[in-house]
């Protein structure tokens, strides 16, 4: 078994990097969408429920189906990696969006009021008070999204986007458990590693005494 891993080391390395690349790109897009949207939701309450509903609905689409839906789309469907990143982004949005919204909304209203009363502009309030106090919540959302994405990214191989799922699909097709494990074990380690390290960051960002 270990001999098998050594033999395939370079391929495992390549696919792991590919896997990481898909996941990280998707997370980057998801943050770029979800954090500003979450902030907007705290400013315009009417905006909050519909946004959460859409993000929730996206989350319920089975991943294999979502990859399939995106396939015929122009531009997106041209490259497998684009489909994979778009689908992963869709899944990563909800946890980040929800946590950004909740993180800011749960700040003690008295602090929000004092921030305004001291003469903070909207932007100052966001930068100096809301984002720092909500940062550990937002990071917790990113952490959930990361673990989810690492897992779902294995399915990206179904549309030819590569990643560790390639081993798994090949292994399933050829009934070779070693191949399945060559994909599953590094994917699991990635998820655990991301969960652990982001957990550390989350703890570091937490503001003690925040209510």
């Amino acid at each position: 078994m270990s001999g098998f891993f050594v033999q395939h080391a370079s391929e495992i390395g390549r696919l792991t990097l590919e896997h990481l690349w898909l996941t990280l790109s998707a997370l980057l897009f998801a943050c770029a969408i979800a954090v500003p949207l979450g902030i907007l939701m705290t400013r315009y309450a009417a905006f909050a429920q519909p946004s959460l509903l859409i993000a929730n609905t996206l989350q319920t689409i089975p991943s294999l189906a979502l990859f399939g839906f995106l396939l015929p789309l122009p531009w997106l469907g041209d490259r497998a990696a684009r489909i994979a990143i778009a689908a992963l982004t869709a899944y990563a949005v909800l946890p980040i969006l929800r946590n950004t919204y909740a993180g800011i909304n749960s700040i003690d209203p008295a602090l929000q009021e004092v921030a305004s009363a001291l003469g903070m502009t909207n932007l100052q309030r966001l930068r100096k008070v809301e984002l720092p106090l909500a940062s550990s919540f937002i990071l917790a959302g990113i952490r959930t999204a990361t673990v989810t994405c690492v897992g779902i990214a294995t399915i990206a191989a179904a549309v030819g986007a590569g990643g560790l799922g390639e081993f798994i699909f090949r292994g399933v097709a050829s009934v070779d458990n070693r191949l399945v494990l060559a994909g599953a074990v590094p994917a699991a380690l990635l998820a655990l590693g991301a969960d652990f390290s982001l957990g550390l960051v989350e703890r570091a960002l937490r503001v003690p005494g925040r209510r």
Partner: protein
Amino acid sequence: MSITSKPVIEFRGASYRLPGSQLLLDRISLRFEPGTTTALLGRSGAGKTTLLRLVNQLLLTSDGELFIEGKEAHSWDRVALRRRIGYAIQETGLFPHFTIARNIALALELEGKSAAERRPRAMEMLKMVGLDAQFADRYPRELSGGQRQRVGVARALAASPSILLLDEPFGALDPLTRRELQEMTRALLRELNTTTLLVTHDLEEALYIADRVILLDAGRVVADTPSAEFRKSTQPEVREYVRAFRHAEDAA
């Protein structure tokens, strides 16, 4: 106080109505002269805090007029106006992720003052409210309630505001600490030329710190007297309030 001196804050028939149409302040007309300290008394829901919030434009008058430093409140740039107004509330007002020094000098930071200007001012204010310099780099959670409240007062005064709004600043403190802070605040206000509005439930505190006491009830001014004359007032509303307070004292 001459009658002709220009008021810093002037309400002219100002009302505040909640969106749901409940009237919280009903045609208030009041003048606050420079350098005076006025206590706002009244039962919960009488409109005391609402009145403060109209001054710093956290709420906007629904009717009537409100002038701040001679200028219609609505025509002030809200951020600019708030930076001229010190504001302190019960305990919760300090930012937990800022050090004490940063909390104190926040108004200066918002104005874009450099760290080199902010630090000495923060230290000066710490000293002014009777706190040791070693507190500067601590966080609010590391301080006692009384110490935090001192920091709250220091922060409200750091930018030398012309108006100071205190909303039950000592409400959550034990009687001894409360007394200390009242003494400190009284001395500070006498020294500074700030126009102060103090919301409190404590009659003793009102009479001790303020030169003038206003009693609100259901959104209206029912009494407005110099502190020294409040207890002597024959007005039924005032007598009722004083009696209720004495009752609590007697029971204790």
